[in-house]
């Protein structure tokens, strides 16, 4: 698994529910760069992230990483609106599953448990956590396996201010190591993004 890679989108367009959300979008990110996607609700921020992760087919154009031998979805961590955690499993079981399934070694996990304040809760069923804690658990997935591209959809939702600081530091650290981050947010994150992409609603399609 490569630790760094580049990401490039060429003339991509997105269609949901028969409507064209955006078209002719281009961007390039080198290792260590980050993109903030902003815009009103429904304009396609989530769709863009899901297209990069391979969860949504592109209507047109192509998205490529710098790494030819590994398919793009396997280079990404996608943390979306839904947390992707199973309530009936304990925190530890959730995380261990991600480590095994995503092919990671969990090297940074102990540190991540500590910084996110979840270390004492490992044996508890994930269903008992508060909304903020569930969000932090979902973010732990980023540390279960090393993947160069982080796709974060509204990552700071449900997080209190100290936790947002922790998230900011984690993203900054990831970027410093040569990773790429694409985040969609309509509230400002403290981390400084290399670039901003503002999606607008086009009323005349």
């Amino acid at each position: 698994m490569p630790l760094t890679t580049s990401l490039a989108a060429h003339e991509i367009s997105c269609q949901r529910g028969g409507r064209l959300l955006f078209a002719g979008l281009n961007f390039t990110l080198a290792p260590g760069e980050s993109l903030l996607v902003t815009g009103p609700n429904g304009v396609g921020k989530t769709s863009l992230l899901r297209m990069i992760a391979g969860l949504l087919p592109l209507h047109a154009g192509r998205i490529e990483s710098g790494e030819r031998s590994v398919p793009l979805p396997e280079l990404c961590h996608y943390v979306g609106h839904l947390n992707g955690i199973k309530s009936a499993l304990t925190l530890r079981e959730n995380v261990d599953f991600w480590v095994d399934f995503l092919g990671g070694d969990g090297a940074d996990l102990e540190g991540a448990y500590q910084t996110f304040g979840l270390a004492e809760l490992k044996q508890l069923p994930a269903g008992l956590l508060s909304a903020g804690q569930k969000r932090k658990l979902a973010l732990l997935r980023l540390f279960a396996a090393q993947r160069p591209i982080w796709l974060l959809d509204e990552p700071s939702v449900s997080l209190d201010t100290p936790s947002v600081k922790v998230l900011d530091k984690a993203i900054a650290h990831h970027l410093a190591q040569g990773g790429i981050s694409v985040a969609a947010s309509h509230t400002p994150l403290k981390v400084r993004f290399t670039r901003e992409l503002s999606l607008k609603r086009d009323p005349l399609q």
Partner: protein
Amino acid sequence: MKEAWALFRRDVVLAWREGGTIGTALGFYLVVVAITPLGLGPDLNLLSRIAPGVLWVALLLASLLSADRIFHNDYEDGALDVLVTGRLPLELVAALKSLAHWVTTGIPLALLAPLLGLLLNLPTDAFPLLVVAMLTGTPALSFVAAVGASLTLGLRRSGVLLALLVLPLYVPVLIFGVATVSAASVGPASPWPPFLILCALSLASLVLAPIAAAAALRTASR
């Protein structure tokens, strides 16, 4: 390999823990078989003749009960996104989840069947054949149910729709499954021909159904 085992184990653990999934299917099986004589009358001769059919039809229905959880729960809480971006091909993910469904639903139902056969006066020398036939046929039921589950992901009334879509596809398994069991009591002399066809149906669905299920999962992206 590690990934595949992790997914399979996770699904089995979840089925076990998520409140009574296995128990409900078993209970449903019992209820349906128990009320049949109430509808048909307690004539033991009649019951023993129809027992293989009743046991199989009730098995199909009980199997379908838990089918929509094969993908539904993961779809609802976003875990399906994680599964799709893993290192396993989606077809293998579908196959492993279908297998987990078989282990947590199909096998228990098949093992319960002889006990219910007692209620229907099924001849006891048909019991081993019953269990073997059901253990052979239930994989096909789970794998085809997964196709239905993937097609109806996130839809309202998905349980009933799933049954409508999948039951006609169950007809061959039903026919040959019943024939295998009746061979001991009513039907043709040897259970081998229908049993071998049943094996073939299960093997074919093991290979083909995950392809259809994965294709359907891809169409359901939000």
